[in-house]
């Protein structure tokens, strides 16, 4: 069978694959994007769609901040259905210990040029009256944003297509590597570069990758405009995101432009099926209700699950895959796929095209993570 020949074939049309395809196509490369289902059908569809700076590590901060700024630059071109809302994040402190963490974050972000504001309990209550009384305060990060990811992914794909990229959806991939992407139906794509942007399925495409599925639950309410105004996250969120073995939940709610309230977050390892886990869901919602008691009465209309792509060192893999000069990875973004998609695309193309990256790529190189790295 004659193979179709491309400069880059991106496997995975989620937000990361879409961003990579758009960046490659804009650089004049001949691009094909392949996905076994619909645009943004994986974690992109399931997740909370936030653009948030994180300070878990210098490398995580650098990537999230760089990417957040790229989103800001892209903002004027985003269509309305992407629902880009600069509502900001409030990290909520339940006690004095967490307030100490607030002050640490304020200093950290201040040193790096990220505007923040420490909120005392009165200001917090004024900004978010539906939070439980007795909070110690919080940290407002006004440049954080929420958006609607499936439409953002579609927008990026459309830009890629406008620059000549081909989209092949509904095409299951059976094998990738050594310059070849083979579909389950037999069609072959020949590429100088293959990008594995398979998210939670990246390890199925490239055996031996240290990317594992991390299941999460979400719930969404009917429309209650004004009930919550900012993305709200408990400071314990990082403890939840940190744990590499235990199931955990953390308070995290997000207002949608529709007025609906999106409630997360939960993390479970080892779950292969996407069915709703009633007990895990209940714990997540209970945590949310502890922070916002008035959630109790709200009409909840849908619940769903999704799989994040998790790595043991809590950073994504962006760069060449060891052992195959044609294969690049752009995966393992865990809960930060939306945030870091644009920077991922830039850093990936920097490496493909030999450009100078805006931030050091070292921490994200796949070669830095041994295969089958044990999860601590």
């Amino acid at each position, binding site marked *: 069978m004659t193979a179709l020949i491309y400069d880059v074939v991106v496997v995975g049309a989620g937000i990361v694959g879409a961003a990579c395809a758009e960046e490659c196509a804009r650089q004049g490369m001949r691009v094909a994007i392949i996905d076994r289902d619909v645009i943004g059908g994986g974690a992109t569809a399931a997740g909370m769609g936030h653009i948030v700076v994180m300070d878990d590590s210098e490398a995580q901060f650098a990537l999230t901040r760089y990417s957040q700024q790229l989103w800001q630059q892209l903002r004027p071109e985003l269509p309305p259905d992407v629902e880009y809302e600069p509502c900001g994040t409030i990290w909520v402190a339940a006690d004095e210990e967490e307030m100490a963490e607030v002050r640490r974050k304020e200093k950290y972000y201040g040193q790096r040029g990220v505007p923040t504001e420490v909120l005392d309990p009165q200001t917090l209550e004024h900004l978010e009256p539906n939070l439980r009384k007795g909070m110690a305060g919080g940290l407002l990060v006004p440049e954080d944003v929420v958006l609607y990811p499936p439409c953002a992914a579609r927008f990026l794909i459309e830009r890629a297509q406008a620059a000549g990229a081909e989209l092949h959806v509904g095409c299951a991939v059976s094998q990738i590597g050594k310059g070849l992407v083979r579909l389950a139906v037999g069609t072959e794509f020949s590429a100088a570069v293959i990008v594995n942007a398979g998210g939670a399925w990246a390890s199925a495409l490239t055996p031996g990758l240290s990317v594992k599925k991390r299941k999460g639950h979400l719930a969404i309410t*009917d*429309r*209650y405009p004004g009930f919550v105004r900012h993305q709200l996250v408990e400071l314990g969120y990082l403890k939840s995101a940190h744990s590499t073995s235990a199931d955990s939940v953390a308070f995290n709610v997000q207002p949608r432009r*529709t007025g609906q309230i999106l409630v997360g977050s939960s993390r479970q390892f080892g779950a292969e099926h996407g069915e709703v886990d009633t007990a895990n869901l209940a714990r997540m919602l209970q945590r949310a209700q502890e922070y916002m008691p008035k959630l109790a*009465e709200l*009409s909840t209309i849908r619940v769903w699950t999704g799989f994040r792509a998790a790595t043991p060192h809590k950073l994504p893999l962006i760069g060449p895959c060891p052992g195959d000069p044609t294969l690049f990875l752009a995966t393992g973004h865990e809960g930060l796929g939306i945030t870091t998609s644009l920077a991922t695309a830039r850093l990936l193309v920097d490496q493909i095209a030999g450009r100078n990256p805006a931030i050091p790529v070292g921490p994200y190189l796949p070669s830095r993570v041994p295969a089958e790295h044990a999860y601590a």
Partner: protein
Amino acid sequence: MPETITVTVNGTSIAVPPGATVAVAIALAGAACRKSVSGEARGPLCGMGICFECRAVIDGRLHCRSCQIICQSGMEVRTDE
């Protein structure tokens, strides 16, 4: 058994026969139940509680399916928010 039940719809008193639903009271008030996402006036469609087009605010609670709720004396119904 009273002859009629009185509720208010958007501040106006409306009398309904006992057993009538809030959707009926809203109709008698000449109001639509809700505004859709794009601003269209909407009223009941299915009459059996599954379409959610008849939602109104009853005694301060949002998203009540008015076709499934029997009028109680003194209920305050709002459709104008």
